[in-house]
């Protein structure tokens, strides 16, 4: 998980890291423990209410076309026998990242393509700059 590699750099800037996911808490616990991040705050949102509230939509077919989008899902769903079933259309869900503090969103990135890999450190840096300017 890319962000775990950058977690120290992010937290050294005074920003904590938290996750929202669509899986059951038990599955998330195993996954975060595998990456040595079992202490991180995480929210299970299988109904995707938070995704919608933060303006994260489902991808269109065009957005799903690149192999980098569907291959990770296919690998997880088929080869590891996970990913089908209760999540329904969750595989089409677009993701994003937000820097939030005291009721405000300081920075936001909403992915237009599910294969995008954001620069989380840059996002945090931008949020700090924005907060300084205000």
């Amino acid at each position, binding site marked *: 998980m890319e*962000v775990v590699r950058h977690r120290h750099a*992010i937290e050294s800037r*005074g*920003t*904590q*890291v*938290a*996750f*929202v*996911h*669509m*899986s059951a808490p038990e599955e*998330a616990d195993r*996954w975060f423990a595998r990456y040595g991040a079992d202490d991180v*705050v995480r*929210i299970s949102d299988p109904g995707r209410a*938070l*995704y919608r*509230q*933060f303006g994260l939509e489902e991808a269109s077919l065009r957005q799903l076309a690149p192999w980098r989008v569907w291959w*990770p*899902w296919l*690998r*997880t769903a088929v080869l*590891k026998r*996970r*990913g089908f079933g209760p999540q329904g259309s*969750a*595989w089409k*869900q677009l*993701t*994003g*990242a*937000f*820097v*939030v*503090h*005291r*009721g*405000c*969103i*300081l*920075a*936001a*990135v*909403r*992915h*237009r*393509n*599910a294969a*995008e*890999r*954001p620069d*989380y450190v*840059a*996002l*945090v840096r*931008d949020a*700090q700059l924005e*907060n300084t300017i205000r």
Partner: protein
Amino acid sequence: MGGHRGHDRLMPPLPAPLQELQEQGPVLLIFLRHFG
């Protein structure tokens, strides 16, 4: 970095653990699509 970037101001209500965390300091909140 790709995607649509922006600076919103209104934050939706958060579940209690996240609410408490973001009161203590800035939080990078990452929405995941799948594990794997």
